[in-house]
């Protein structure tokens, strides 16, 4: 599984807005590049990143080749209650990765 890096607080007060940063290791090959011999390098990108909290959607990014390698997204969530944040990435060639982080309300 691809290396992922999630940065978010483990604890928050109810109603607080928490900042979330999520990054994943991926080449994001655009499909527009060629090798020295002129052969096209096939596209291999992530297509979708979704963050949910207990099944409710927080943030979703539809990804195109214009997103840089090792896609990084920073966004925020409303800490309405304790819950588990699930991060999932899907892409070309059957790529799939999932990560989860628990947030406790103090």
């Amino acid at each position, binding site marked *: 599984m691809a290396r992922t890096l999630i940065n978010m607080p483990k604890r928050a007060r109810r109603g607080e*807005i*928490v*900042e979330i940063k999520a990054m994943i290791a991926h080449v994001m090959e*655009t499909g*527009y*590049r*060629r*090798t*020295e011999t*002129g052969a096209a*390098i096939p596209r291999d990108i992530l297509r979708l990143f979704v963050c*949910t*909290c207990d099944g*409710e*959607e*927080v*943030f*979703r*990014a*539809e*990804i*195109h*080749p*214009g*997103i*840089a*390698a090792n*896609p*990084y*997204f*920073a*966004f*925020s*969530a*409303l800490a*309405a209650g304790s819950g588990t944040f699930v991060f999932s990435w899907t892409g070309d060639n059957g790529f799939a990765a999932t990560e989860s982080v628990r947030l406790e309300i103090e």
Partner: protein
Amino acid sequence: MRRRDFLAATGAVAGTLALRADLASATPEQAQEAIRALVGGGTLRKGRVKLDLPPLVENGNAVPLTVTVDSAMSAMDRVRAIHVIAEKNPQPVVAVLRFGPRAGRAAASTRIRLADTQTVVAVAEMADGTFWSGSAEALVTMSACVEGV
């Protein structure tokens, strides 16, 4: 090398280059087309969207982008999605960022690729059906997607 072979070879190379030039850049018209398609019958107004890009980009392969929309993210005033469009990239639509019911602020950051010096536009789609846009210029000294492997 015989002259005929040389011409055939260079012709083939020129043809490939022309094809690559086609691929390498969308036109501002295509970007406008993409914006029209997403706005549909609605109207697009300028304002409420702040797009932050470095004004001078040394490496187009990873350009930090932050987009912020002036919205309270309350039940009435919400941002549904932000569309990021780079008019001179091979594909003008770079990303669509969607905000769910548990989203905090109407803001997000990512890193994008820029093929050329250009204006990047962010269009915010609000829950009330209105569309707002903001833009930023970036001067790119080293373009993304030109180097081989």
